[in-house]
């Protein structure tokens, strides 16, 4: 009967799609592409593998999304906002007094302390990750 065949076919098709989605997801990390720096999210892991691509993406976001118009990165002089030179090198705290961590920097970007405009709408979580990775590369 048509209905039974239909049920079986549907179950078959959905199972195949399910298996393909899971399998490719698993294989992607294992075989196909290298994992990136997602773990920056937590701020706990100090030893992420920072790859060049992410740093570049972070740097270009920094320029293009408007961070660079207020913050210097290669001179210690303040622009409209404070310089970010050596931000993660333990020299100073954030304007709010918070210690510089992944989380505090992320919070500052999304819901800033003081005059800085919020960037929560302009940057998604991954872009935030990339910017943070880039900021970590800034020397003091």
């Amino acid at each position, binding site marked *: *009967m*048509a*209905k*039974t*065949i*239909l*049920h079986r*076919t*549907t179950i078959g*098709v*959905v199972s*195949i*799609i*399910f298996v*393909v*989605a*899971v399998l*490719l*997801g*698993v*294989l*992607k*990390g294992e075989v*196909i*592409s*290298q*994992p*990136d720096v*997602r773990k920056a*999210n*937590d701020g706990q892991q100090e030893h992420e593998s920072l790859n060049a*691509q992410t740093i570049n993406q972070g740097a270009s976001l920094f320029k293009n999304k408007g961070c660079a118009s207020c913050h210097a990165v290669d001179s210690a002089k303040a622009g409209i906002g404070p310089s970010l030179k050596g931000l993660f090198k333990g020299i100073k705290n954030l304007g709010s007094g918070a210690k510089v961590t992944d989380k505090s920097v992320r919070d500052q970007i*999304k*819901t800033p302390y003081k005059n800085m405009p919020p960037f*929560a*709408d302009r940057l*998604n*979580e*991954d872009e935030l990750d990339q910017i943070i990775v880039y900021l970590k590369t800034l020397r003091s």
Partner: protein
Amino acid sequence: MKGGLFKITLYVALVGLPVWMATFLGAPSKGVLNDVGRNFALVGFMILVVQFLLAARIKWIERSFGLDILIRYHKYMAFAAAGFLIIHPFLLALGHRSWRLLIAVDLPWYIWAGKLALIILIVNILFGVYQGKLGLKFEKWRLGHDLSAITILLLIFLHAWFAGDDLKVLPMQVLWMILISGAIVLFVHHRFLRPIRLGRYLYRVEEIQQETGNVWTVKLTPPHGRTIGHYMPGQFHFLTFFRSPKLPVEEHHWTISSSPAQKDFISSTIKAVGDFTSTIGLTKAGDTVRVHGPFGRYSYLLHPEERDLVFLAGGIGITPLMAMLRHMRDVGDTRSVTLLYANKQEDGIVFSKELQQMAAGKNPNLTLVHILSRPDEKWTGETGHLDREKIERHCNGNLGKKTFYVCGPVKMAEGLVEALRRKGVSERQIRREIFSFLD
């Protein structure tokens, strides 16, 4: 299922396409949970895009399965898409080790767009499932279904475009553009362009004939210079009646009751049961009709080798079987058909006279058995319900080599199929159409 397997394979390949592309071209891996979560989103989106293809009544696809089956499949795949899409934020949240994505309020707009799309999708599915119980009119339901389908598509497109890691690369963006424009083109074609095109060749109501108290046959003739397209007996078509301005203009599907062996007219025999069909008796000769069809695979012509048929009909379910019988008569087919035809009362039997004449002739070799559940005293034929006992008796206990065509009210049809299967009749021997698109 001619070419069916190929088309099913094509479907799987199509739904899997964005995942394949994202795997090799998309964003780098972010751990298994994130990767699988993103894949689920891609798959869910693609199923929804292909839904537009399934629902667009494309003949090339329909031919292999029958539109009734295709619409059912469309419905089941909506559940599958919802499943994948609901699971994906949970996987992403697990992958991020943060439940913010699920519970936080201060999320970017494109995350909310995705959530909204998911809510509309679920509401849409619930309405599809409970349309009957909610007493929602088909026409209204369909409008809501169309609008929400387009809304979901657009929201989910934006959500993926801005939130999706894999959508940061050009090939994926190109694919996304092609998919959304394809879906919109199909929708516009199906709902606007094709009706306009078919509207240029309106059929004319030649005659409307009362068969019984509430059953009417509408005979249609093609416009000047056009012929009736090829169809198989047992197929159905969509009709939109344009009648007096006071009467509703709605598209519904009915079985074709005429035999394709005669080329002068095409007819549907319609029972006045619903909101719309109750106005069918008010249709007048000279009214015009938009015809879209034929569809379906419920026809003996697809199985010419089967020589011993049993037709099990309940009430208005006789129509596709009648079309087949008429066709057998018109082409001089000699196969054997046993028709068990259940009705409440004698005066409710549709096509009573014509069936009697057919049973007296040789083409086809018809054995006609009427069964009445509420007969009057004069009735000498079978009484009660059409059940296993009566089927066995009239088939002389030999069900093995026969093919059964079941058509009637859903409960009756399901009961009969169940009874036949319990008697060891194989699925291949039972033909049934799932005529109602919704229940």
